[in-house]
């Protein structure tokens, strides 16, 4: 359960930082009058917090999967699924999508329409290419004898990549809704709130994918073994 505990430690750190701004040591029974609200202001839209909390939930989901993966490898020594080189390319595509979306955010914030639409389309294409690439990896592995109902290592690979892909697909639908609304309005700045949330979501999914990719490569177990050796 090391992976989920590490993830929760990170969440606890963020929560602790937020709580430290809430005047937890104050004495509310002695205070009368209108006190300013600490910890949020006009810059933090509810949507931003919604996505941030949702990412914590999704992160918890993948961390649990990661924990189960690492735990089972330690209990039952399997042969890991040899990941095709295509997975590296897919990872690059997701990184590109994330970068393009960040560029859209910067453009929308500056109010410049130049390259904005092109970046939005490029981000969408890169994301769809990522999904198509993952599907191709599935087909390659299945053809190579690594079936879903084969070894638990193969089952984990399909489950982890499948759940991650579903989350990316959900993001694509949300991005399409944001883009369509923008196409109707035509105002560049009006695009900003929606696309900012999409970019945040994409960055989160990219970060999760990088962690999962490392686990599927077996690096997570190697890292844990190193840590244990250091502690031991």
């Amino acid at each position, binding site marked *: *359960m090391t992976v*989920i*505990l590490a993830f*929760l430690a990170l*969440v*606890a750190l963020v*929560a602790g930082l937020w*709580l430290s701004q*809430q*005047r*937890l*040591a*104050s*004495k*509310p*029974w*002695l*205070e*009368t*009058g*209108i*006190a*300013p*609200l*600490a*910890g*949020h*202001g*006009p810059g*933090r*839209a*509810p949507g931003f*917090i*919604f996505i941030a*909390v*949702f990412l*914590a*939930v999704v992160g*918890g*989901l993948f*961390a*649990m*999967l990661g*924990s*189960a993966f690492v*735990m*089972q490898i330690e*209990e*039952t020594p*399997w042969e890991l699924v040899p990941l095709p080189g295509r997975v590296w390319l897919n990872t690059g595509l997701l990184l590109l999508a994330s970068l393009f979306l960040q560029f859209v955010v910067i453009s929308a914030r500056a109010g410049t329409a130049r390259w904005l639409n092109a970046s939005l389309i490029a981000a969408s294409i890169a994301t769809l290419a990522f999904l198509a690439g993952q599907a191709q990896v599935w087909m390659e592995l299945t053809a190579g004898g690594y079936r*879903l*109902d084969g*070894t*638990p290592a193969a*089952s*984990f690979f399909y*489950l982890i990549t499948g*759940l991650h892909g579903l989350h990316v697909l959900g993001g694509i639908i949300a991005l399409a809704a944001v883009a369509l609304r923008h196409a109707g309005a035509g105002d560049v700045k009006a695009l900003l709130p929606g696309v900012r949330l999409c970019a945040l979501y994409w960055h989160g999914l990219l970060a999760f994918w990088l962690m999962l990719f490392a686990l599927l490569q077996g690096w997570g177990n190697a890292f844990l073994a190193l840590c244990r050796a250091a502690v031991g």
Partner: protein
Amino acid sequence: MVDRGSDDQMQLPPREVADVMPPHAHSWIGKYVFSQDAKYIAIQYSGTAVAIGLVALVMSWLMRLQLGFPGTFDFITAEAYYQFVTMHGMIMVIYLLTAIFLGGFGNYLIPLMVGARDMVFPFVNMLSYWVYLLAVLVLVASFFVPGGPTGAGWTLYPPQAVLSGTPGGAQSGIILMLVSLILFIIGFTMGGLNYAVTVLQARTRGMTMMRLPLTVWGIFTATVMALLAFPALFVACVMMLFDRLLGTSFFMPTLVELGEKLSYGGGSPIAFQHLFWFFGHPEVYIVALPAFGIVSDLIAVHARKNIFGYRMMVWAIVIIGALSFIVWAHHMYVSGMHPWFGFFFATTTLIIAIPTAIKVYNWVLTLWKGDIHLTIPMLFALGFIVTFVNGGLTGLFLGNVVVDVPLSDTMFVVAHFHMVMGVAPIMVIFGAIYHWYPKITGRMLNEAMGQIHFWVTFIGAYAVFFPMHYVGLVGVPRRYFEIGEPEFLTAPVDGLNAFISSAALIVGAVQVLFLFNIFWSLRRGREAGGNPWRAASLEWQTPETPPRHGNWDELPDVYRWAYDYSVPGAPEDYLAQNDPWFSDGEDRRL
């Protein structure tokens, strides 16, 4: 104890939260069925939870009939008994307690108590309820499929949960159970995100985190915990569903069933236990923390006294929430763990007793020299404290490895968790309903029926679960359809079992009186007015009772915490949170 106010304090800072009135529904369906008003959603959640909870109650009767009078009722077969055990546990823990505390009280109270017009994302909130309802319907459907619902026990441990020897294992029962849980978690996540973001971002002017009523602190912390703990159950359910439907072996080792080697192999059943209890133990506090918060408010209001140690209460809630994530394996002492892990988990388990004890002391000290009104909500709050302490003490036994091992899987464990996680939170739910019913309906619940309800429930629950501890101590194992008179029992238990079953039937029956009271009082209850308990928190200060959609004419401004009772020099024995009264002797209320 109140600061001397100054004119500067009356200069209002700008609002940090925009005051936007949510769009009102115009059709009957939009208003009452697909409602986006958190208050209606709360009632929908609570109604559904109570309805499915009644099914679980009837199943507990059937179980007790079998245990108390074995061989008397032919229709209770061994398979049916295991199905009752499983469905009773799962329904009570997930579909009743979690749903009613977070979906019911969370939806009704959070917007009102923080001074918001509604949840931040009302549409998602509405979806949350309908997905929950779908989860309940899928669960109910499992009663009607061939083989019936799963009888794997509420923990659903593999590999037995998906094998043919378990009721519903080789048929659809286990599949529907897992699908229902997955749907529940999706629905809860929609609602939970709303509760958390509403508390974080929709508090009205002046409502700092340290002015929130403890009810909101409890529900908020439990929500955050649930958002982080439910993914463990989600992952476990998806993986087991894959094992059952797609032939994977996440949790399935190499197996021989009825002389045939199955196609499974290489999986780890223990991994499921880790995932399940990583959700399962926080789940105890997901139910308990809202109860802690609510009972704090009930005690303060009905003892006319500010809550003792508010800061400590907040810290304790947060610390309990955090610690509950590192104790899960105390449910797995008999699964064969390294002794050092047993030592670690026993230690963390016992450490949780410290913040929990702080809360109990603070409740008692709040009562100390208070102007205690023995209203029905107060009776239930007192009942909760006693029961929670009793259940908590046996938890100290079971938290220790050497004591837990011989008591594991006995009726002692059943008695313990029913006291701490069944009776205690149910007491709070009842108390809370008696307390907030006047705000929800505008009428008081009938006092005489309430008294009968409380005393029969309280005494009856002890008649059920106190002797059950003894039954466990003499060695009666749990989850046995019929044990006869084995030699390992150190004393006969037949008479006690019959007594427990009789008490359980009476306790169950008196809940019908409670339901009758709920419906009877809707029309015939005494009119309550806006604030019959003279409570200080914001939900009692709405311009209308029941509050309309949008809750407020203008969003209220908050000047103080929620516990200003019996303030010296104040014009009344309570000061509402939105009351701009200062203690310099001058009444400057606008």
